[in-house]
């Protein structure tokens, strides 16, 4: 059977043999098999291949490659609706499938803003037609992302929103955030927040410090993040609502999250793959593809993020996929848009942390798949029997060099152009159907 017939979906059962099976939901890392039938995992683990497999199954010898849950990316900006020249649900879906991401959570910062049930419904329906991966929208927490009035949180949730966020924006009104957390608590709604005080950010465009001063760029102090996160955690304590910090970037934020967790609050946090991989020095001669929000911080902060991921203080890794085109990036650094694409490079970049010995495969896939699914209340993100068959086959070792032009995203603003990676996705299945298969050039 060739790739072409497998793609575009058959529901034929598949048996993966000689796989290194990773299932963080069971703390499982073992050589074994994974059996997929009827869109679900039948068995996965060292003993899975015992007994007869499903009739008519395709049998794949993985030759030691990893089989792990498909990645669940909690933070992806897609240009649809409103900026389809940068990314559509279809192109994002192709990029995601190639990167081993089987579920993406889209941000509401679109045009129009996703702050109404009809628009949530639009994303859900359109994604169902345009892409084979799973797409779950997050809806705006405030109308028009204006930070003034709560949206219809509960109706939006019933329409399919998996959480509520103002996307790139931070809410300055503490009373509003308090009410939103309190209101959402009644139905278990998740509030995700970008923690950056806009006044402290001010005219800043990169991490404050010596590098910014040398480049003559205005700095963003870490306190822009810390102050908001500290406030939010206090509000989470007051309201007992479910709060998720979208992406933290510095060591002090990690301390705040650890304290909140120790106090038993429903507080979780994410970190972007960029902040695990890069630091402020990568900006070099004003390279705008490294202009991010929050900004890339110091190497000590990057190392703190890696340590926080390894010890579980950081719950999830996100791509923070943010397609920007030449029309927003071909400017002087201070005037260029923030953001980097990341769906296709998140896993290869994250595997660097495995190769360097900073984290094990189970820990990594917990943060890339299992935890985000748990936080979002999705049944994916694991290879437990009965779970949806969203899985990826990963060759962890083969080296390759990232070429922006080959990325499937419509925008090529990757900070990993020319990066040397080791390991890549060989095959991606969503609900038992193969949606991507690596074809060597």
């Amino acid at each position, binding site marked *: 059977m060739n790739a072409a017939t497998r793609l575009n979906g058959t529901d034929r059962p598949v048996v993966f043999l000689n796989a290194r099976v990773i299932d963080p939901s069971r703390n499982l890392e073992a050589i074994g098999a994974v059996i997929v039938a009827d869109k679900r995992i039948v068995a996965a683990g060292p003993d899975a291949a015992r007994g007869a497999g499903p009739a008519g199954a395709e049998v794949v010898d993985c030759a030691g490659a990893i089989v792990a849950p498909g990645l669940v990316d909690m933070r992806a900006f897609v240009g649809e609706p409103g900026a389809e020249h940068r990314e559509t649900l279809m192109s994002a879906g192709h990029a995601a499938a190639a990167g081993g991401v089987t579920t993406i959570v889209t941000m509401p910062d679109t045009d129009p803003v996703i702050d109404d049930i009809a628009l949530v419904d639009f994303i859900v329906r359109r994604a169902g037609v345009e892409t084979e991966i799973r797409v779950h929208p997050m809806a705006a927490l405030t109308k028009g992302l204006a930070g003034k009035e709560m949206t219809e949180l509960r109706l939006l949730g019933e329409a399919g929103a998996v959480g509520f966020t103002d996307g790139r924006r931070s809410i300055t009104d503490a009373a509003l955030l308090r009410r939103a957390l309190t209101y959402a608590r009644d139905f278990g709604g998740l509030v995700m927040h970008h923690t950056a005080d806009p006044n402290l950010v001010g005219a800043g465009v990169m991490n404050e410090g*010596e590098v*910014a*001063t040398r480049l*003559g760029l205005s700095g963003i102090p870490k306190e822009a993040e810390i102050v908001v996160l500290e406030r939010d955690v206090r509000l989470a304590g007051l309201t007992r609502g479910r709060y998720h910090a979208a992406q933290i970037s510095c060591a002090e934020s990690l301390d705040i999250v650890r304290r909140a967790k120790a106090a038993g609050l429903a507080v979780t946090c994410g970190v972007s793959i960029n902040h695990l991989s890069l630091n402020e020095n990568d900006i070099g*001669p*004003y390279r705008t593809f490294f202009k991010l929000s929050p900004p890339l911080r110091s190497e000590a902060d990057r190392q703190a993020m890696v340590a926080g991921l390894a010890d579980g203080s950081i719950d999830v890794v996100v791509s923070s996929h943010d397609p920007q085109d030449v029309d927003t990036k*071909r*400017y*002087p650094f*201070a005037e260029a848009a923030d953001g980097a694409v990341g769906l296709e490079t998140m896993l290869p970049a994250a595997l660097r942390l495995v190769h360097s010995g900073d984290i094990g495969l189970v820990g990594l896939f917990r943060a890339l798949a299992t935890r985000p699914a748990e936080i979002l209340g999705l049944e994916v993100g694991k290879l437990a029997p009965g779970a949806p068959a969203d899985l990826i086959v990963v060759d962890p070792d083969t080296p390759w060099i990232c070429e922006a032009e080959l990325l499937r995203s419509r925008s090529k603003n990757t900070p990993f152009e020319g990066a040397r990676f080791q390991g890549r996705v060989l095959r991606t299945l969503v609900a038992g159907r193969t949606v991507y298969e690596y074809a060597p050039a």
Partner: protein
Amino acid sequence: MNAPPPLSAVTFPHRHLLGIEGLSPGEIVALLDLAEDEIAVSRQVEKKKAVLRGRTQINLFFEASTRTQSSFEIAGKRLGADVMNMSIGASSVKKGETLVDTAITLNAMRPDILVVRHHAAGAVELLARKMSCSVINAGDGQHEHPTQALLDALTIRRHKGRIAGLVVAICGDIAHSRVARSNILLLNALGAAVRVIGPSTLLPAGIERLGVEVFTDMRRGLAGADIVMMLRLQRERMDGGYVPSVREYFHFFGLDREKLAWAKTDALVMHPGPMNRGVEIDSAVADGPQSLIREQVEMGVAVRMAVLEALAAHLPND
């Protein structure tokens, strides 16, 4: 003074002048030596050299600056170039065209030298990457203003005979000043002891890592200084944003005779202009015997001629 050694592509191996950063002390001195020669040219009746004859120099200013633009224009014309001034308001750029597209358009007009001032740090470097001609940074945001630092160094050297070992105090809005950054880099490269003086709201994070001594008390910062370099305080920063008022700023950081007396008796006063009299500097000091402010303007033309001539060695000749 002896005739300067001829400046060649070997002694100045750069196609662009984007900043002081990246220049070796030897290259800086070579530019200053050549500038001495240009002073002589500018003081002749026939103020002409032919090193840029037939060349096109475009002065592309995204930020208005009468003095820097005219200084570059005169410098180019004295070297024989055809000089064209283009002033582009920031608003018209915002209307659509990206800076890279502007560069591609200009490049198609085949200029030989592009002199650029832009309100954003790094913008000149971005242009330089897309242009096939030589590019000179005439000020990019809060990053660098290399010809200002060179003209300041030339002015100092002509009066003190040296740079090494001098104590230079740079006072005022260090955070938003490209002049301060370029001067810190250049003066450190040539062995001066550099101090910065200002209220902490106008001192950027990590400034001490650039090899300067930091003072927030002006009198202490001026004690023993050979050179006092004042910076312009932009109007929009005076009204409670960074300092509470003009009155308060002048009281603590304005250079008057009393504060200047803390510096060495033969200390010299400089200002890149345009001055805000009564804000950062008192008229009695600005026009007084220790002031080099007018001479800086003359040195500006000479230094810019030197830079243009040095880069001319790299222009293609076929």
